[in-house]
Protein backbone atom coordinates (compact mmCIF):
# COMPACT_ATOMS: atom_id res chain seq x y z
CA UNK A 1 0.00 0.00 0.00
CA UNK A 2 3.02 2.33 0.23
CA UNK A 3 3.83 5.10 -2.24
CA UNK A 4 4.53 4.40 -5.90
CA UNK A 5 8.23 3.89 -6.48
CA UNK A 6 8.83 7.13 -8.43
CA UNK A 7 7.25 9.31 -5.79
CA UNK A 8 8.89 7.43 -2.93
CA UNK A 9 12.35 7.98 -4.39
CA UNK A 10 11.64 11.65 -5.12
CA UNK A 11 10.61 12.31 -1.52
CA UNK A 12 13.68 10.57 -0.16
CA UNK A 13 15.88 12.68 -2.47
CA UNK A 14 14.26 15.81 -1.05
CA UNK A 15 15.66 14.86 2.33
CA UNK A 16 19.00 14.05 0.81
CA UNK A 17 19.22 17.38 -1.01
CA UNK A 18 18.24 19.20 2.18
CA UNK A 19 15.40 20.85 0.30
CA UNK A 20 12.95 19.84 3.04
CA UNK A 21 13.15 19.04 6.74
CA UNK A 22 10.03 16.91 6.81
CA UNK A 23 7.33 15.41 4.60
CA UNK A 24 3.65 15.52 5.53
CA UNK A 25 1.52 12.67 4.24
CA UNK A 26 -1.14 10.19 5.27
CA UNK A 27 -0.73 6.63 6.53
CA UNK A 28 -3.44 3.94 6.45
CA UNK A 29 -5.41 3.44 9.65
CA UNK A 30 -7.91 0.85 10.80
CA UNK A 31 -10.89 2.95 9.67
CA UNK A 32 -11.21 4.29 6.07
CA UNK A 33 -9.86 7.81 6.90
CA UNK A 34 -6.08 7.59 7.21
CA UNK A 35 -3.96 9.62 9.64
CA UNK A 36 -1.63 12.53 8.97
CA UNK A 37 2.00 11.81 9.81
CA UNK A 38 5.16 13.90 9.65
CA UNK A 39 8.17 12.04 8.25
CA UNK A 40 11.37 13.61 9.52
CA UNK A 41 13.65 10.94 8.06
CA UNK A 42 13.64 9.34 4.59
CA UNK A 43 12.78 5.94 6.07
CA UNK A 44 9.50 7.17 7.50
CA UNK A 45 8.34 8.11 3.96
CA UNK A 46 7.80 4.44 3.33
CA UNK A 47 4.66 4.40 5.61
CA UNK A 48 2.74 6.92 3.45
CA UNK A 49 -0.06 5.85 1.09
CA UNK A 50 -1.82 7.50 -1.85
CA UNK A 51 -4.95 5.40 -1.43
CA UNK A 52 -8.11 7.46 -2.10
CA UNK A 53 -9.35 6.12 1.25
CA UNK A 54 -6.65 7.92 3.24
CA UNK A 55 -7.27 11.63 2.55
CA UNK A 56 -7.33 13.47 5.88
CA UNK A 57 -6.77 17.22 5.53
CA UNK A 58 -3.00 17.67 5.72
CA UNK A 59 -2.92 21.45 5.31
CA UNK A 60 -4.38 22.07 8.76
CA UNK A 61 -0.98 20.91 10.11
CA UNK A 62 0.85 23.64 8.20
CA UNK A 63 -0.91 26.60 9.80
CA UNK A 64 -1.79 25.19 13.23
CA UNK A 65 -0.38 26.56 16.51
CA UNK A 66 1.46 23.24 16.71
CA UNK A 67 3.30 24.15 13.49
CA UNK A 68 4.15 27.58 14.88
CA UNK A 69 5.56 25.95 18.02
CA UNK A 70 7.68 23.58 15.92
CA UNK A 71 9.34 25.69 13.19
CA UNK A 72 11.98 23.00 12.61
CA UNK A 73 9.45 21.10 10.44
CA UNK A 74 9.78 23.77 7.70
CA UNK A 75 10.55 23.75 4.85
CA UNK A 76 8.06 20.93 4.50
CA UNK A 77 6.95 18.84 1.58
CA UNK A 78 3.22 18.12 1.37
CA UNK A 79 1.25 15.87 -0.98
CA UNK A 80 -1.45 18.12 -2.36
CA UNK A 81 -4.30 17.42 -4.76
CA UNK A 82 -5.83 20.12 -6.95
CA UNK A 83 -8.31 21.28 -4.30
CA UNK A 84 -5.59 21.32 -1.67
CA UNK A 85 -3.34 23.49 -3.83
CA UNK A 86 -6.28 25.91 -4.00
CA UNK A 87 -6.34 26.00 -0.20
CA UNK A 88 -2.55 26.55 -0.23
CA UNK A 89 -2.96 29.51 -2.58
CA UNK A 90 -5.47 31.04 -0.20
CA UNK A 91 -3.08 30.49 2.74
CA UNK A 92 -0.23 32.10 0.80
CA UNK A 93 -2.42 35.08 -0.13
CA UNK A 94 -3.09 35.61 3.58
CA UNK A 95 0.60 35.29 4.47
CA UNK A 96 -0.37 32.32 6.68
CA UNK A 97 2.72 30.71 5.19
CA UNK A 98 5.51 31.82 2.92
CA UNK A 99 5.69 30.01 -0.42
CA UNK A 100 9.34 29.03 0.23
CA UNK A 101 8.31 27.17 3.42
CA UNK A 102 6.31 24.59 1.46
CA UNK A 103 7.50 22.15 -1.22
CA UNK A 104 4.29 21.23 -3.06
CA UNK A 105 4.10 17.71 -4.46
CA UNK A 106 1.15 18.21 -6.85
CA UNK A 107 -0.98 15.09 -7.38
CA UNK A 108 -2.30 15.49 -10.92
CA UNK A 109 -5.28 13.82 -12.72
CA UNK A 110 -7.03 13.48 -9.39
CA UNK A 111 -10.04 11.12 -9.81
CA UNK A 112 -11.46 12.10 -6.39
CA UNK A 113 -11.12 11.05 -2.75
CA UNK A 114 -13.47 8.64 -0.98
CA UNK A 115 -15.79 10.00 1.72
CA UNK A 116 -15.47 7.60 4.68
CA UNK A 117 -19.07 8.20 5.79
CA UNK A 118 -20.49 7.42 2.34
CA UNK A 119 -18.26 4.32 2.14
CA UNK A 120 -19.29 2.94 5.55
CA UNK A 121 -22.94 3.77 4.69
CA UNK A 122 -22.67 1.65 1.53
CA UNK A 123 -20.35 -1.02 3.00
CA UNK A 124 -21.27 -1.29 6.71
CA UNK A 125 -19.62 -4.68 6.95
CA UNK A 126 -16.23 -3.16 5.91
CA UNK A 127 -13.49 -3.70 8.51
CA UNK A 128 -9.83 -2.66 8.33
CA UNK A 129 -8.22 -0.68 5.50
CA UNK A 130 -8.99 -2.39 2.14
CA UNK A 131 -7.13 -1.70 -1.06
CA UNK A 132 -9.16 0.72 -3.15
CA UNK A 133 -8.51 1.84 -6.74
CA UNK A 134 -10.57 4.13 -8.92
CA UNK A 135 -11.07 2.84 -12.45
CA UNK A 136 -13.30 4.83 -14.69
CA UNK A 137 -16.67 5.51 -13.14
CA UNK A 138 -16.19 2.81 -10.55
CA UNK A 139 -14.32 2.36 -7.29
CA UNK A 140 -13.01 -1.17 -6.83
CA UNK A 141 -12.62 -2.28 -3.19
CA UNK A 142 -10.43 -5.33 -2.83
CA UNK A 143 -9.58 -7.44 0.23
CA UNK A 144 -6.91 -10.16 0.37
CA UNK A 145 -9.76 -12.59 -0.29
CA UNK A 146 -10.46 -10.81 -3.59
CA UNK A 147 -12.83 -8.14 -4.84
CA UNK A 148 -15.20 -6.93 -2.15
CA UNK A 149 -17.31 -4.38 -4.09
CA UNK A 150 -17.57 -2.15 -7.16
CA UNK A 151 -19.32 1.11 -6.34
CA UNK A 152 -20.20 4.17 -8.43
CA UNK A 153 -17.55 6.90 -8.14
CA UNK A 154 -19.98 9.83 -7.97
CA UNK A 155 -21.80 8.13 -5.07
CA UNK A 156 -18.65 7.57 -3.05
CA UNK A 157 -16.40 10.61 -3.44
CA UNK A 158 -16.28 13.62 -1.09
CA UNK A 159 -18.85 16.35 -1.70
CA UNK A 160 -16.08 18.71 -2.90
CA UNK A 161 -14.98 16.16 -5.49
CA UNK A 162 -18.53 16.15 -6.89
CA UNK A 163 -18.09 19.90 -7.71
CA UNK A 164 -14.37 19.69 -8.48
CA UNK A 165 -13.02 22.16 -11.05
CA UNK A 166 -9.34 21.64 -10.14
CA UNK A 167 -8.47 18.09 -11.14
CA UNK A 168 -4.93 19.42 -11.80
CA UNK A 169 -2.84 21.16 -9.09
CA UNK A 170 -2.70 24.96 -9.51
CA UNK A 171 0.85 25.19 -8.13
CA UNK A 172 3.46 22.50 -7.64
CA UNK A 173 7.21 22.05 -7.28
CA UNK A 174 6.92 18.47 -8.48
CA UNK A 175 4.01 16.88 -10.33
CA UNK A 176 2.95 13.23 -9.97
CA UNK A 177 0.07 11.70 -11.89
CA UNK A 178 -2.28 9.74 -9.64
CA UNK A 179 -3.80 8.04 -12.68
CA UNK A 180 -2.42 7.87 -16.23
CA UNK A 181 -3.87 10.50 -18.54
CA UNK A 182 -7.50 9.50 -19.01
CA UNK A 183 -10.46 11.33 -20.41
CA UNK A 184 -12.88 9.91 -17.85
CA UNK A 185 -11.37 11.94 -14.98
CA UNK A 186 -13.38 15.10 -15.79
CA UNK A 187 -17.05 14.10 -15.73
CA UNK A 188 -17.23 13.37 -12.00
CA UNK A 189 -17.99 17.02 -11.25
CA UNK A 190 -21.73 17.69 -11.12
CA UNK A 191 -23.22 21.16 -11.10
CA UNK A 192 -26.32 20.91 -9.05
CA UNK A 193 -25.91 20.74 -5.29
CA UNK A 194 -29.07 19.02 -4.02
CA UNK A 195 -28.41 19.95 -0.39
CA UNK A 196 -28.06 23.70 -0.97
CA UNK A 197 -30.86 23.82 -3.54
CA UNK A 198 -33.21 21.99 -1.20
CA UNK A 199 -32.73 24.67 1.44
CA UNK A 200 -32.88 27.53 -1.04
CA UNK A 201 -36.26 26.23 -2.08
CA UNK A 202 -37.62 26.38 1.46
CA UNK A 203 -39.38 29.40 2.98
CA UNK A 204 -37.66 31.05 5.95
CA UNK A 205 -39.71 29.22 8.63
CA UNK A 206 -38.90 25.83 7.11
CA UNK A 207 -35.24 26.79 6.76
CA UNK A 208 -35.02 27.80 10.38
CA UNK A 209 -36.86 24.64 11.49
CA UNK A 210 -34.20 22.63 9.60
CA UNK A 211 -31.22 24.58 10.92
CA UNK A 212 -32.68 24.73 14.42
CA UNK A 213 -32.79 20.91 14.62
CA UNK A 214 -29.16 20.82 13.39
CA UNK A 215 -27.64 23.58 15.50
CA UNK A 216 -29.34 22.29 18.66
CA UNK A 217 -27.19 19.17 18.32
CA UNK A 218 -23.87 21.06 18.25
CA UNK A 219 -21.71 20.13 21.28
CA UNK A 220 -19.21 23.01 20.73
CA UNK A 221 -16.18 20.73 20.57
CA UNK A 222 -14.44 23.16 18.09
CA UNK A 223 -13.67 20.24 15.69
CA UNK A 224 -15.09 22.23 12.72
CA UNK A 225 -12.83 25.20 13.54
CA UNK A 226 -9.76 23.10 14.38
CA UNK A 227 -10.12 21.02 11.19
CA UNK A 228 -10.08 24.12 8.98
CA UNK A 229 -6.69 25.04 7.46
CA UNK A 230 -7.80 28.70 7.36
CA UNK A 231 -8.73 28.94 11.08
CA UNK A 232 -5.37 29.58 12.69
CA UNK A 233 -5.86 32.75 14.76
CA UNK A 234 -3.76 33.06 17.88
CA UNK A 235 -6.75 33.79 20.16
CA UNK A 236 -9.91 32.89 18.26
CA UNK A 237 -12.80 35.27 18.99
CA UNK A 238 -15.07 32.25 19.49
CA UNK A 239 -13.12 31.52 22.67
CA UNK A 240 -12.19 35.07 23.68
CA UNK A 241 -13.32 36.46 27.03
CA UNK A 242 -12.80 40.17 26.55
CA UNK A 243 -14.73 41.00 24.53
CA UNK A 244 -16.99 37.98 24.63
CA UNK A 245 -18.69 37.32 21.30
CA UNK A 246 -19.94 33.83 22.12
CA UNK A 247 -20.76 32.78 25.64
CA UNK A 248 -19.54 29.38 26.78
CA UNK A 249 -23.02 27.99 27.56
CA UNK A 250 -24.04 25.29 25.04
CA UNK A 251 -27.53 26.12 23.75
CA UNK A 252 -29.21 27.07 20.48
CA UNK A 253 -28.44 30.84 20.58
CA UNK A 254 -24.73 30.44 21.38
CA UNK A 255 -24.30 27.54 18.96
CA UNK A 256 -25.92 29.60 16.19
CA UNK A 257 -23.73 32.61 16.99
CA UNK A 258 -20.68 30.31 16.97
CA UNK A 259 -21.40 28.97 13.48
CA UNK A 260 -22.51 32.32 12.02
CA UNK A 261 -19.35 34.10 13.23
CA UNK A 262 -17.16 31.23 12.02
CA UNK A 263 -18.73 31.29 8.55
CA UNK A 264 -18.60 35.10 8.32
CA UNK A 265 -14.86 34.95 9.08
CA UNK A 266 -14.40 32.52 6.20
CA UNK A 267 -16.46 34.35 3.57
CA UNK A 268 -14.28 34.96 0.54
CA UNK A 269 -11.54 32.72 1.96
CA UNK A 270 -13.17 29.31 2.28
CA UNK A 271 -12.68 26.95 -0.68
CA UNK A 272 -15.67 24.78 0.40
CA UNK A 273 -13.41 21.78 1.00
CA UNK A 274 -15.95 20.28 3.44
CA UNK A 275 -13.41 19.39 6.14
CA UNK A 276 -15.56 21.10 8.80
CA UNK A 277 -18.50 18.86 7.91
CA UNK A 278 -16.29 15.77 7.84
CA UNK A 279 -14.69 16.55 11.21
CA UNK A 280 -17.98 17.19 13.01
CA UNK A 281 -18.54 14.30 15.47
CA UNK A 282 -22.33 14.85 15.42
CA UNK A 283 -22.57 15.17 11.60
CA UNK A 284 -23.83 18.78 11.36
CA UNK A 285 -24.27 19.65 7.62
CA UNK A 286 -21.78 22.56 7.85
CA UNK A 287 -20.68 22.05 4.27
CA UNK A 288 -24.07 23.37 3.11
CA UNK A 289 -23.35 26.80 4.59
CA UNK A 290 -19.84 26.89 3.18
CA UNK A 291 -20.95 25.91 -0.32
CA UNK A 292 -23.83 28.37 -0.18
CA UNK A 293 -21.45 31.21 0.68
CA UNK A 294 -18.95 30.12 -1.96
CA UNK A 295 -21.68 30.13 -4.61
CA UNK A 296 -22.96 33.51 -3.40
CA UNK A 297 -19.52 35.06 -3.48
CA UNK A 298 -18.89 33.73 -6.98
CA UNK A 299 -22.29 34.81 -8.26
CA UNK A 300 -22.27 38.34 -6.77
CA UNK A 301 -18.60 39.27 -6.94
CA UNK A 302 -17.10 36.75 -9.35
CA UNK A 303 -14.74 35.71 -6.57
CA UNK A 304 -13.24 32.22 -6.27
CA UNK A 305 -10.85 32.00 -3.34
CA UNK A 306 -7.52 30.33 -3.76
CA UNK A 307 -6.98 30.82 -7.48
CA UNK A 308 -4.45 33.66 -7.13
CA UNK A 309 -1.75 33.32 -4.44
CA UNK A 310 -1.44 37.11 -4.26
CA UNK A 311 -5.18 37.88 -4.49
CA UNK A 312 -6.86 40.52 -2.33
CA UNK A 313 -9.32 39.54 0.40
CA UNK A 314 -12.89 39.74 -0.88
CA UNK A 315 -14.21 41.87 1.99
CA UNK A 316 -11.22 44.23 1.98
CA UNK A 317 -11.94 45.59 -1.48
CA UNK A 318 -15.06 46.70 -3.33
CA UNK A 319 -16.10 47.14 -6.91
CA UNK A 320 -18.32 50.00 -8.11
CA UNK A 321 -20.23 47.43 -10.13
CA UNK A 322 -21.29 45.57 -6.96
CA UNK A 323 -25.02 45.02 -7.22
CA UNK A 324 -25.84 47.37 -4.39
CA UNK A 325 -27.68 45.69 -1.57
CA UNK A 326 -29.87 48.72 -1.01
CA UNK A 327 -30.77 49.02 -4.70
CA UNK A 328 -31.90 45.43 -4.67
CA UNK A 329 -33.76 45.89 -1.42
CA UNK A 330 -35.54 48.99 -2.63
CA UNK A 331 -36.83 47.30 -5.79
Amino acid sequence: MSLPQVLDRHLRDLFGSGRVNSVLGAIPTRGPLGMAQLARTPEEVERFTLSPLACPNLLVHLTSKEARLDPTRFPLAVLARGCETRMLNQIFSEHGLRRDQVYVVGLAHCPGAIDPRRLSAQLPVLRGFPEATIEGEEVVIREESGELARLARTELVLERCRHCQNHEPLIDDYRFDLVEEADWIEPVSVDEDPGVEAIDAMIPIERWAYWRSQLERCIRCHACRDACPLCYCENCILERHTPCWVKRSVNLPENTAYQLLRVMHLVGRCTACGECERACPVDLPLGLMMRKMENLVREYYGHRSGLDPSGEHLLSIFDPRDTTATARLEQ
Partner: protein
Amino acid sequence: MLIGDRKQQSYEPRIVAFLCNWCAYAGADLAGTQRLSYPPNVRVIRLMCSGRVDPGFIIEAFLEGADGVIVAGCHPGECHYEHGNRLAERRMTTLQHLLGFIGIEQARVRLAWVSAAEGRKFAQLIETTVEEVRALGPFQQFPRRAP
Protein backbone atom coordinates in the same frame (compact mmCIF):
# COMPACT_ATOMS: atom_id res chain seq x y z
CA MET B 1 -36.20 43.72 31.78
CA LEU B 2 -36.00 40.16 30.62
CA ILE B 3 -36.24 39.44 26.93
CA GLY B 4 -38.77 36.72 27.56
CA ASP B 5 -41.50 38.79 29.12
CA ARG B 6 -41.13 41.73 26.72
CA LYS B 7 -42.25 39.37 24.00
CA GLN B 8 -45.34 38.24 25.87
CA GLN B 9 -46.77 41.79 26.09
CA SER B 10 -48.12 43.44 22.94
CA TYR B 11 -45.31 43.05 20.47
CA GLU B 12 -43.32 46.26 19.91
CA PRO B 13 -40.33 45.47 17.62
CA ARG B 14 -36.95 46.52 19.03
CA ILE B 15 -34.62 47.81 16.30
CA VAL B 16 -30.92 48.51 16.78
CA ALA B 17 -29.49 51.02 14.29
CA PHE B 18 -25.79 51.52 13.51
CA LEU B 19 -25.52 55.05 12.08
CA CYS B 20 -22.40 56.53 10.51
CA ASN B 21 -21.38 59.71 12.28
CA TRP B 22 -21.07 61.94 9.21
CA CYS B 23 -24.19 61.20 7.21
CA ALA B 24 -26.80 58.92 8.78
CA TYR B 25 -26.32 60.22 12.35
CA ALA B 26 -26.37 63.83 11.07
CA GLY B 27 -29.50 62.93 9.06
CA ALA B 28 -31.09 61.58 12.24
CA ASP B 29 -30.16 64.80 14.06
CA LEU B 30 -31.67 66.79 11.19
CA ALA B 31 -34.90 64.81 11.55
CA GLY B 32 -34.80 65.98 15.15
CA THR B 33 -34.12 69.64 14.37
CA GLN B 34 -36.98 69.46 11.86
CA ARG B 35 -39.16 68.01 14.65
CA LEU B 36 -40.24 65.11 12.41
CA SER B 37 -41.67 62.18 14.34
CA TYR B 38 -40.99 58.49 13.92
CA PRO B 39 -41.67 55.43 16.11
CA PRO B 40 -39.42 55.12 19.22
CA ASN B 41 -38.57 51.46 18.52
CA VAL B 42 -35.13 52.33 17.16
CA ARG B 43 -32.06 52.54 19.43
CA VAL B 44 -29.06 54.18 17.77
CA ILE B 45 -25.35 53.36 18.12
CA ARG B 46 -23.05 55.99 16.62
CA LEU B 47 -20.02 54.71 14.72
CA MET B 48 -17.52 56.77 12.78
CA CYS B 49 -18.35 54.95 9.51
CA SER B 50 -20.69 52.25 8.24
CA GLY B 51 -17.46 50.46 7.30
CA ARG B 52 -16.92 49.93 11.05
CA VAL B 53 -20.00 47.73 11.38
CA ASP B 54 -18.81 44.17 12.00
CA PRO B 55 -21.22 41.39 10.96
CA GLY B 56 -20.68 40.13 14.50
CA PHE B 57 -22.49 43.22 15.82
CA ILE B 58 -25.60 42.32 13.87
CA ILE B 59 -25.48 38.77 15.22
CA GLU B 60 -24.93 40.11 18.75
CA ALA B 61 -27.89 42.47 18.37
CA PHE B 62 -30.21 39.61 17.43
CA LEU B 63 -28.81 37.50 20.27
CA GLU B 64 -29.48 40.25 22.78
CA GLY B 65 -33.13 40.69 21.82
CA ALA B 66 -33.27 42.97 18.78
CA ASP B 67 -35.99 42.13 16.23
CA GLY B 68 -34.43 44.13 13.39
CA VAL B 69 -31.15 45.89 12.62
CA ILE B 70 -30.52 48.98 10.48
CA VAL B 71 -27.08 49.87 9.16
CA ALA B 72 -27.12 53.36 7.63
CA GLY B 73 -24.21 55.11 6.01
CA CYS B 74 -23.39 57.79 3.44
CA HIS B 75 -24.53 57.48 -0.15
CA PRO B 76 -22.04 55.62 -2.35
CA GLY B 77 -19.37 58.11 -3.38
CA GLU B 78 -20.08 60.48 -0.51
CA CYS B 79 -18.45 58.49 2.30
CA HIS B 80 -16.41 60.77 4.53
CA TYR B 81 -13.73 58.07 4.60
CA GLU B 82 -13.92 57.48 0.86
CA HIS B 83 -15.30 53.92 0.61
CA GLY B 84 -16.34 52.76 4.06
CA ASN B 85 -19.92 52.36 2.84
CA ARG B 86 -18.87 50.23 -0.16
CA LEU B 87 -17.11 47.83 2.22
CA ALA B 88 -20.16 47.75 4.48
CA GLU B 89 -22.25 46.85 1.46
CA ARG B 90 -20.32 43.62 0.78
CA ARG B 91 -20.27 42.63 4.42
CA MET B 92 -24.00 43.22 4.89
CA THR B 93 -24.92 41.54 1.63
CA THR B 94 -22.97 38.40 2.51
CA LEU B 95 -24.36 38.43 6.05
CA GLN B 96 -27.93 38.91 4.83
CA HIS B 97 -27.59 35.94 2.52
CA LEU B 98 -26.07 33.77 5.24
CA LEU B 99 -28.85 34.73 7.67
CA GLY B 100 -31.39 34.18 4.93
CA PHE B 101 -29.95 30.74 4.27
CA ILE B 102 -30.52 29.65 7.87
CA GLY B 103 -34.00 31.13 7.98
CA ILE B 104 -33.72 34.73 9.19
CA GLU B 105 -35.97 36.92 7.02
CA GLN B 106 -33.74 39.25 5.03
CA ALA B 107 -35.99 42.22 5.81
CA ARG B 108 -34.74 42.08 9.42
CA VAL B 109 -31.36 43.47 8.35
CA ARG B 110 -31.67 46.74 6.50
CA LEU B 111 -28.76 48.54 4.78
CA ALA B 112 -29.65 52.09 3.80
CA TRP B 113 -27.93 55.24 2.57
CA VAL B 114 -29.04 58.44 4.34
CA SER B 115 -27.15 61.69 3.77
CA ALA B 116 -26.78 64.48 6.29
CA ALA B 117 -29.53 66.42 4.48
CA GLU B 118 -32.11 63.66 4.36
CA GLY B 119 -33.90 64.06 7.70
CA ARG B 120 -37.19 63.08 6.14
CA LYS B 121 -35.73 60.03 4.43
CA PHE B 122 -34.32 58.91 7.79
CA ALA B 123 -37.74 59.20 9.45
CA GLN B 124 -39.30 57.24 6.57
CA LEU B 125 -36.58 54.60 6.80
CA ILE B 126 -37.39 54.09 10.48
CA GLU B 127 -41.12 53.94 9.85
CA THR B 128 -40.93 51.42 7.00
CA THR B 129 -38.43 49.25 8.88
CA VAL B 130 -40.53 49.22 12.05
CA GLU B 131 -43.61 48.30 10.02
CA GLU B 132 -41.82 45.57 8.11
CA VAL B 133 -40.30 44.06 11.26
CA ARG B 134 -43.64 44.30 13.08
CA ALA B 135 -45.14 42.34 10.17
CA LEU B 136 -42.46 39.69 10.53
CA GLY B 137 -43.23 39.26 14.24
CA PRO B 138 -40.75 39.02 17.11
CA PHE B 139 -37.31 37.53 16.49
CA GLN B 140 -37.88 33.96 17.78
CA GLN B 141 -34.96 32.24 16.08
CA PHE B 142 -32.06 32.52 18.51
CA PRO B 143 -32.46 35.22 21.19
CA ARG B 144 -30.43 34.70 24.34
CA ARG B 145 -32.56 33.72 27.38
CA ALA B 146 -31.75 35.33 30.71
CA PRO B 147 -29.02 33.24 32.44
